[in-house]
């Protein structure tokens, strides 16, 4: 969680220089979900995520250097500068790529789970998506097919109550997305997405269920993003949402509440936390330096990779 938070706060720090030329969709405030779910995943398990993917990729083990370099459009980026912040890929870590079309990744995760089932391997697939994606037909089509075939897939809905600036109440008749699972005869679970332990426990059962061959689970994690839909700034001043709503959720910071619990339980102390912060910051500073020092792709790379070629 700390790595994800600081990774994105560093983007905010450098974004004003205008040389990270990729739209960034920050997940600050939502880190507990990526951390709590990915803790249960093996390297080869699949995740299909969204335009708001930085947290999921880091939690799955992607090197911050490769992400920053990608956001800076460098050849050392995880997509050689072709994808940017919205499309990170790390196939060897179970991230076959990332889509920025809302809801588009959900059936992809189901398809990866179908492949696992056909091959008889024990991989699970996780589809991360927001409440906005649950407006889409692809969400329902995916739940239907995954339930029908008992596929090893975990649908993780990060319900942050806004699709860009449209509140959930303006888009759906019911505030609880997990209830949709009942229509497809699969478990639907709702947890406080800002409580990393609650997410961890709910995801554990869901991942095991998938691995056992018992089928999919819809896990709704209620949460809130602190920043605007896109970019480094917050949007409440523009009238996108009430300030009080934001401050209420900020008081329920997933990292702060977990830190306090660890200290209260005597598992960690303040000094440990400061040391962790220092280590993370040092690693990220090096990663940003690596990215900025890296070369841009040659302009002729424009024409590369439109098609897969067998001999390359």
């Amino acid at each position, binding site marked *: 969680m700390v790595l994800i938070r600081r990774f994105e706060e560093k983007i905010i720090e450098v974004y004003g220089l205008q040389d990270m030329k990729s739209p960034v969709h920050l997940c600050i405030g939502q880190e507990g979900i990526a951390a709590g779910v990915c803790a249960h995943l093996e390297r080869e398990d699949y995740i299909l995520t969204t335009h708001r993917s930085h947290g999921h990729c880091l939690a799955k083990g992607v090197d911050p250097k490769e992400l920053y370099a990608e956001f800076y459009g460098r050849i050392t980026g995880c*997509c050689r500068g072709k994808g940017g912040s919205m499309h990170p890929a790390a196939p060897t870590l179970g991230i076959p*790529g990332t889509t920025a079309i809302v809801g*588009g990744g959900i059936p992809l995760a189901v398809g990866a789970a179908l492949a696992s089932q*056909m091959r008889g391997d024990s991989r699970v697939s996780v589809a991360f998506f927001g409440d906005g994606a649950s407006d889409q037909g692809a969400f329902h089509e995916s739940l239907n097919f995954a339930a029908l075939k008992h596929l090893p897939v975990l649908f993780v809905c990060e319900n942050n109550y806004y699709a860009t600036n449209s509140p959930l109440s303006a888009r759906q008749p019911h505030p609880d997305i997990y209830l949709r699972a009942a229509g497809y005869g699969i478990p639907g679970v709702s947890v406080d997405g800002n409580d990393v332990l609650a997410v961890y426990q709910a995801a554990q059962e869901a991942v095991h269920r998938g691995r056992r061959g018992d089928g999919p689970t819809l896990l709704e994690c209620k949460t809130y993003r602190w920043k605007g839909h896109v970019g480094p700034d917050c949007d409440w001043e523009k009238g996108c949402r009430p300030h009080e709503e934001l401050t209420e959720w900020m008081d329920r910071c997933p990292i702060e509440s977990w830190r306090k619990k660890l200290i209260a339980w005597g598992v960690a102390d303040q000094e440990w936390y400061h040391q962790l912060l220092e280590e993370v910051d040092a690693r990220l500073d090096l990663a940003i330096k690596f990215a900025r020092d890296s070369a841009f792709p040659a302009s002729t790379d424009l024409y590369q990779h439109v*098609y897969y070629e067998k001999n390359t």
Partner: protein
Amino acid sequence: MPWTKVFLTEDDLKQFAAVEGLRSLSYVAALREAQEQLLETDPRVFILGEGVDDPGGIFGSTLGLADKFGSARVLDIAIAENGMTGVAVGAALAGMCPIFVHMRMDFLPMCMDQIINHAAKWHYMTGGAQKVPLVVRSIIGRGWGSAAQHSQALHGLFLHIPGLKIAIPATPYDAKGLLIAAVEDGNPVMFIEHRWIYDSVGYVPPEKYRIPFGKGVIRQEGSDVTVVAMSQMVYEATKAARELTNEGISVEVIDPRTVKPLDEELIFQSVQKTGRLVIADVACKTGGVGAEIACRVVENVPEFLRAPVKRVNFPDTPTPCSPILEDAYYPNSNTIKETIKQLCRMKTDD
């Protein structure tokens, strides 16, 4: 060469088969055989689509495959085209080689997000880290009042999208060889069949063979006019060409077989010889494959042209139902003949 021949009548074929001693098969049987051999030899291949295991077997093209390979590999699915295309793409990302079958090409607009935004872009967007070996089979319908939503040919739409390949086979030989090549290609391929040529017969080798993408063939050699014809229009153009021989006009018929990539060299060479170009397609005119072919000739080799380029297409209207309106809608060998004669008259007038 037996594999370039188009057989317009059964007598035509019988004569050929008797002489050469070669195996003939229908277009639909060739498609079925290609899929059967792919399923037999590659565990990554599976077929999905609404009705792939039903008694009709997608007009016979998947007949018996579910019985032979099981419902896990020949998978009947819900009518949820976009979501299920996403499932196919996801399986492809995870190393499988799905063949998604649509009984009508008209259902592909339901899948546009997954085909255009996902399948077509993925290899590029990931900097080559991940390929999408997906084949989307779809069938163009025609006639019997099929009307506006069961008879469209939309290859022109897909032509516009970088990252897609498009195969549009006209003969049984090409149907089998291109389908095998498509599945093994590693890229998303739109594989476009025509219902009206499902029963056409021709030489089809029994073994598993591949036809390279981007290689057209000359169906008939000629020296006065080049007709680039696609899909069912290959038959109409060949018929027109044979009939025009009697009128002293020598027509070269070219079948590009894949329109993306397009064998433009073959077309340029032919136009260099004939100086006249007609493009006959099974789709509406505006913004279609014909427009692209004409433009490439004009952009690259304008000096070869001795007359304006002409297109034979469906009119820019939705397909009607009434047989009288259908007759007015669909071009045929006569339409192609008239267009060719018009072009040749232009030359005479010069």
